[in-house]
């Protein structure tokens, strides 16, 4: 396992080096020349590079007590907070007491002097290269240029329209926090920080995308997460050479282990509590600016069947629900396939009365069962897709039309047998119970159906064996995908088919936390004991 990872890492590191070397030899697109002391020249160059965009505001001004210093403030007015610029940059620069007195002996051509004495915003930095200056400018900072200085001051004063923290649309809960991630990555990091107030919580920043320059953060707990895992994620992130990252899905597709698999090997979530829980287990979260969907790696298959609510509810009901989820995944992938295999190939396995009712229901149906199943499944997926994309009010109409036209009318017209409608609709309902595997489930459903139509039960068993082999060979960042079932790990099984009480799960998942899996994340023996009578009586 380690050897495999080492090899991968070495391979990627070598590959990376090569790419870096390539990068260096290529002529840079942005000029990486230094800033010149001549303000006019600088302004001209910058304007030239920005192609005179109309939203770039350049404010030139003089300051100092006899107005002998020249400066310019450049910012993109759509990205910056103008009020803050006026209050914290322009006002101090032009009207500060220090500048109005003539006896102050300060060299205001030095950026450091200005930064330390005048500017009252906290988030600012010095740059010397034109390319850095431009990067920051485009990210929403205001740039202060002083005539005679080879440096520029970048003042982060970006203003960002952000959605309020709302309940996420994809993962709603009955019990549990209602907050969800938003598009602003800063807010998202804050949400995570509030959950884990630990000095070991590391947040590493990457900027990915030649044009989009998207901020990507890896968040993990240094003392818990496997350093090799973090190194691996770093390597894979650094590899990405792409114009733009618009959503975390871009990152996912570039760093996943097996791009040819229909199963996702990196999970995503909109819920801070869920992501925090996974980080605490030793996983690493990847936050991407501009999307509320946070990636978490590594992912195991079982995670798809776990919901945050399982841990907030008491263990008994949580276990029942979890078993129902497993069953519903089986129904959603195998339901139509088993129906077709039974009715077309293995009629002897259907109880007599049921067989007679099925035969009666199918009496006028002109299509073979496999065709019927495909048509119905197609209609269902069509309806679902249409319902998702349409505005909510129209979506309802689609639902009603679908239910009446497809369900009732087609049965009455004798095009579809009533039992097929039952099979497909129960499949459809079941497929929503495991949201994380809906994609793979849909594909598998069609594959199994085709196998069942061609080779009956034999085809389905072969399909299942193939799927099992594929799943068993998958890995997500070194963690076996079917862990802890394959390979078998008994302490891991506490949280698979049933959810043991929290006090009984004292160890972190062994496959994820490789380096110190022996360390407990809680003390054992926290099982609540019944009150001692003395405690109450002694009052």
């Amino acid at each position, binding site marked *: 396992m380690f050897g495999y990872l080492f090899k991968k890492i070495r391979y990627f590191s070598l590959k990376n080096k090569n790419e870096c070397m390539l990068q260096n030899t290529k002529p840079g697109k942005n000029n990486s020349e230094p800033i010149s002391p001549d303000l006019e020249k600088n302004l001209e160059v910058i304007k030239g590079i920005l192609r005179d965009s109309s939203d770039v505001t350049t404010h030139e001004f003089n300051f100092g007590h006899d107005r002998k210093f020249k400066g310019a403030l450049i910012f993109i007015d759509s990205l910056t907070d103008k009020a803050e610029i006026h209050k914290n940059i322009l006002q101090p620069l032009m009207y500060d007491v220090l500048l109005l007195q003539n006896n102050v002996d300060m060299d205001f051509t030095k950026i450091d002097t200005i930064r330390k004495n005048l500017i009252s915003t906290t988030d600012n930095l010095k740059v010397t290269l034109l390319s850095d200056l431009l990067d920051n400018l485009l990210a929403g900072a205001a740039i202060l240029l002083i005539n005679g200085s080879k440096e520029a001051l970048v003042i982060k004063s970006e203003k960002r329209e952000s959605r309020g923290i709302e309940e996420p649309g994809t993962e709603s809960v009955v019990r549990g926090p209602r907050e969800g991630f938003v598009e602003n990555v800063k807010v998202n990091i804050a949400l995570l920080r509030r959950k884990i107030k630990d000095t070991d919580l590391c947040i590493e920043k990457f900027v990915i995308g030649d044009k989009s320059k998207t901020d990507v953060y890896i968040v993990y707990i240094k003392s818990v997460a496997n350093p090799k895992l973090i190194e691996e994620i770093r390597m894979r992130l650094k590899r990405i050479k792409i114009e733009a990252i618009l959503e975390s899905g871009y990152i996912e597709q570039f760093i996943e282990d097996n791009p040819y698999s229909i199963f996702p090997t990196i999970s995503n979530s909109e819920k801070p509590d869920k992501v925090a829980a996974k980080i605490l287990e030793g996983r690493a979260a990847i936050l991407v600016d501009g999307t509320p969907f946070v990636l978490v790696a590594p992912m195991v298959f079982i995670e798809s069947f776990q919901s945050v609510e399982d841990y907030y509810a008491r263990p008994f009901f949580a276990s029942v629900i979890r078993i129902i989820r497993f069953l519903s995944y089986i129904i959603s992938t195998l339901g139509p396939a088993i129906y077709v295999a039974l009715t077309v*190939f293995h*009629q*002897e396995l259907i109880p007599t009365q049921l067989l007679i009712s*099925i035969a009666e229901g*199918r*009496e006028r149906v002109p299509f073979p069962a496999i065709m019927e199943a495909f048509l119905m499944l197609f209609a269902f997926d069509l309806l679902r897709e249409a319902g998702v994309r349409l505005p909510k009010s129209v979506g309802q109409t689609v639902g009603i039309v679908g239910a009446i036209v497809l369900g009732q009318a087609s049965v009455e017209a004798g095009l579809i047998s009533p039992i097929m409608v039952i099979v497909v609709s129960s499949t459809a309902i079941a497929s929503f119970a495991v949201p994380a595997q809906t994609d793979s489930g849909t594909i598998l459903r069609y594959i199994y159906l085709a196998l069942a139509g061609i080779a009956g039960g034999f085809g389905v068993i072969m399909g299942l064996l193939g799927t099992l082999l594929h799943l068993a060979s998958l890995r997500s960042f070194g963690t076996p995908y079917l862990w802890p079932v394959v390979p078998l790990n008994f302490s891991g099984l506490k949280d698979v088919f049933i959810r043991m009480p929290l006090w009984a799960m004292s160890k972190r998942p062994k496959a994820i936390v490789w380096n110190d899996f022996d360390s407990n994340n809680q003390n054992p023996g926290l099982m609540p004991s019944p009150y001692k009578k003395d405690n109450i009586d002694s009052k």
Partner: protein
Amino acid sequence: MGKKMKLSNMKLISCFLMLFILSGCIGAREINDLEIVIGMGVDKDENPENILLTAQVVKATAGKASENESRGEDSKAFWNVSSRGNSVFDAVRQITHKTGNRLFISHNQAVIFGKDIAKEGLQEYIDFFLRAHEMRPTALILIAEDRASDVLNAKPETEKFPAVNIAKLIKTYGFTSNFYKVNMEDFASCLLNPTKAQLVPLVSIIQDGEYKDVYVSGMVVFKKGKMVSKLTHDDVRGLLWILGKVKSGVIIVPSPNEQGKAVLEIIKAKSKVTPEIKDGKIVMHIKIREESSLSEQTTSENLATNEAFEKIQEASAEVIRKEAMAAFNKSVELNADIFGFGEMLHKKYSKEWKTLKDNWDEIYPTIELNIDVETKIIKTDLLKKPASPSE
């Protein structure tokens, strides 16, 4: 290397896809194209070389039968289709000339043989039903008093299908223990036994006004696959007492004061048969343990007392002993080992059995039975006393 792997994977996948698509849905049969057979009857044809096979096929339109009925159409949910053939399988295939589809016999509930077939010997006709992969070993086997096709034609009042009705009749044998269920597997197992006689339930038709009612009138005794005689209801219960397979039933004994009767319901019955060879004589020690409840009494005297119970128990033990002996005497008369005593001896005295088995027919009538019956009345149902003025 990686590229090569991918290429061979692609090749494999495309081969696989082609195989699937080209082979198509071979072996697929749509459910509405099936001729679902729920019962079969085998009779001798007028031509002694041939047999007449009757198959009861489900009409898929049965669900709509209620609509048809109002229009006065034929409302039968089944179709009895028959054909002639040299052998059973031949006839099964000849039927396709009438049905247009192969028969689907996995849901066959019962196979009924006509009496003339039974007399000739079932061995040669049963082979198909054991061998055909669609046939299930749980299908029942029955003998018709007269012709099997008539039994399949007698439309029952409550059930839609005659064959299902007959299967239901057989499966509820436990209420009286006057016959028992015999399926393909049981019959095959008996056929394999060189000494044991086989029993198969017998169905008859009685004309009741304009309706024909099918009922189970007893069991047929086969010796070496050939029908030799019939057993009455009481004989069969005697047999089941010895085998310990009585499930329930009614025992009627005179009440202790000789006025009226006490009617007992059998709740539980067990038996243990221990064969013994003593000085060359074979004795079967049979211990029967029975528990019953007082279900009815036709006398005003309170029978729910320990004294009365004791007398009733004795009387019922006597009834059981008599039934068992009657069954044994009948079997001796037929010289047919319906109990499987030979098998029991074989299990206990496997060495002696080697010499016994060759002239079992001579030995069987000499077997002695030593029956020990113990009965208990364990409840009186809802009444503590009869509804009559107490003295």
